[in-house]
């Protein structure tokens, strides 16, 4: 019997598309809605307008007003509604327009969403995804540029992730929606429509697991750990450092709660130096947690203290001060120099 001839006629011409993060999220949401009719999208202006960042563009038109719901301006109500939908079998995806607007809904997130499964001793699942555009660099002020992810990572019962590139944007949003636990999904808003980050996304590929960090550049001199918008900053820094014969390893955390730090420990045991990078204020943050865990696991491997390059421990500043506040290539490289000079 002859080997079957593989027909190309049935295959789409290509499953690979060149996408921005924003478009990848849009297509990821679309794929999740096509795969499961229990997936609903709700939020302020997500329907007719397609979201202020256009991430839900076209979804209401194609899936209807029953599945893509414009809501009144009421974050607590949006999240509370999503909790009610989820306990009755839906998989709601809420959009919070800017990260600073999540705080009116904080009570519902912390007191209901995160607690119901525990409170009912496992009797209720609450598969809600809350999408949160976050981070600075868009010339806005407090409430529109902040990085509050550590606050949510601190709450037991929530999972917290952040994507940093189009491939992850496409897959991680779908995996978050399939997850049976509540997921806070932080999206690097200033990179939504970045042409420089456009990348080929193979919608037929097998994605990495959701709750796993990933080494995105190999190196041997020092380790940089980042997530979301800071991953690009670290990759740029590693490229610049290579000109000085410094070999920096870069790890994209991807998941902030639970943290997947085994790749970080393995890396630090080789390089002996760790710099963590985040736009969030440093105190009591994700970067603090990594530093604590690394000193615990890699104490005898460390050649220098774990250093943190972060936003300031201040409210997020207005636009004229952003360049001082946000971690950039120079601040990252300066930290590398300090670690090497220890």
């Amino acid at each position, binding site marked *: 019997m002859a080997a079957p001839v593989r027909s190309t006629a049935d295959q789409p011409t290509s499953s690979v598309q060149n996408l921005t993060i924003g478009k990848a999220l849009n297509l990821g949401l679309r794929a999740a809605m096509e795969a499961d009719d229990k997936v609903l999208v709700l939020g302020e*202006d997500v329907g*007719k307008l397609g979201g202020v960042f256009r991430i839900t563009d076209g979804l209401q038109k194609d899936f209807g007003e029953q599945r893509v719901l414009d809501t009144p*301006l009421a974050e*607590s109500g949006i999240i509370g509604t999503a909790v009610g939908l989820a306990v009755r079998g839906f998989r709601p995806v809420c959009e919070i327009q800017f990260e600073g607007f999540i705080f009116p809904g904080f009570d519902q997130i912390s007191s209901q969403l995160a607690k119901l499964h525990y409170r009912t001793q496992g009797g209720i699942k609450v598969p809600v995804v809350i999408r949160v555009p976050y981070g600075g660099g868009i010339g806005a*002020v407090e409430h*529109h540029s902040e990085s509050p992810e550590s606050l949510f990572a601190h709450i037991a019962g929530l999972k917290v992730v952040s994507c940093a590139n189009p491939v992850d944007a496409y897959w991680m949003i779908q995996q978050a929606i399939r997850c049976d636990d509540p997921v806070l999904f932080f999206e690097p808003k200033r990179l939504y429509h970045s042409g420089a980050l456009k990348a080929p996304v193979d919608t037929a590929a097998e994605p990495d697991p959701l709750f796993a960090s990933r080494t995105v550049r190999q190196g041997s001199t020092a380790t940089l750990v980042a997530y979301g918008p800071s991953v690009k900053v670290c990759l740029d820094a590693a490229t610049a450092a290579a000109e000085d014969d410094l070999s920096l390893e870069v790890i994209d955390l991807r998941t902030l709660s639970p943290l997947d730090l085994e790749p970080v420990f393995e890396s630090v045991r080789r390089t002996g130096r760790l710099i963590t990078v985040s736009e969030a204020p440093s105190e009591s943050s994700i970067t603090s947690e990594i530093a604590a865990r690394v000193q615990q696991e890699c104490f005898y491997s460390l050649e220098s203290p774990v250093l943190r390059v972060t936003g300031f421990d201040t409210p997020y500043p*207005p636009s*004229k*001060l952003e360049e001082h506040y946000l971690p950039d290539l120079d601040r990252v490289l300066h930290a590398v120099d300090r670690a090497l000079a220890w």
Partner: protein
Amino acid sequence: MTDTLSTAVSHELDENALLEAYRTMRTIRAFEERLHDEFATGEIPGFVHLYAGEEASATGVCAHLDGRDSIASTHRGHGHCIAKGVDVKAMMAEIYGKKTGSCHGKGGSMHIADLSKGMLGANGIVGGGPPLICGTALAAKQRGTGGVGVAFFGDGASNQGTTLESLNLASVWNLPAIFVAENNGYAEATSSSWSVAADNIADRAAGFGMPGVIVDGFDFFAVHEAAGEAVQRAREGGGPTLIEVKFTRYFGHFEGDQQTYRAKEVAEARAKLDCLKRFRARVTETGQVDAARLDAIDTQVADLIDAAVEEAKAAPKPTAADLETDVYVSY
């Protein structure tokens, strides 16, 4: 109970008060129209939400307020600031992000505040202001100052839990508070005719045990009269009032908004309903004010705005050292 007020001419305003009201409304209009032009040049950072078209509300309400009183504003807060007496040049510098601004460049358009004028701040959180006003009104009541608190908020904020909680608290505590719902028809792109599950925001007052009134927001005199009654009632211990002011904003939600969600009501409002045009027509037709005096105010205001923009552009930026100041009283 909700009443619709007639637009009878108020007889309580003398010529000086009329001229002052006109100056305030003209200043707000000129400030906002100039910002509309300047924002398009790219020199102004961040987001700017303009109050043009809504001048009669801030002006008609704040005309009754004095140094004892405080107001909380919204992301569309420039008009409230000007009507409460915040320095126009400092406001402009603030919007340009400069060190000479009302908040030394740390507030920006959405967070202009001047407590010395009783202005608690514009507010980047929709529905963020009403709870603050419960606090200031309670303070005024406890201290017996006779002061009132006024929370300006939009139709979007009327659906926020914080706003509804505040209405309830103000009634429960019989606070000297006035809630001014500025219904300009849209929360960003969402129509209030859809998002507000009542015929009128003012109808909700009954549910909180306070009077609710609806006024034509393009009519300064209607706003002035309704606010006057509410402020007097509050000062005399009669408790809170919910006033719904209905009108249309002339510009988009923010500068740059394509406004695909709304049709041609703006042009019609500008042509037929405009608060400045109607004010001028009324006071000149009744002979209360000479048109030449209004023209003179127009010129003075235009000069003030020119100077404010010029000085704001020339003013120094905050420095890196300003990042770490004023975070704590002591540390």
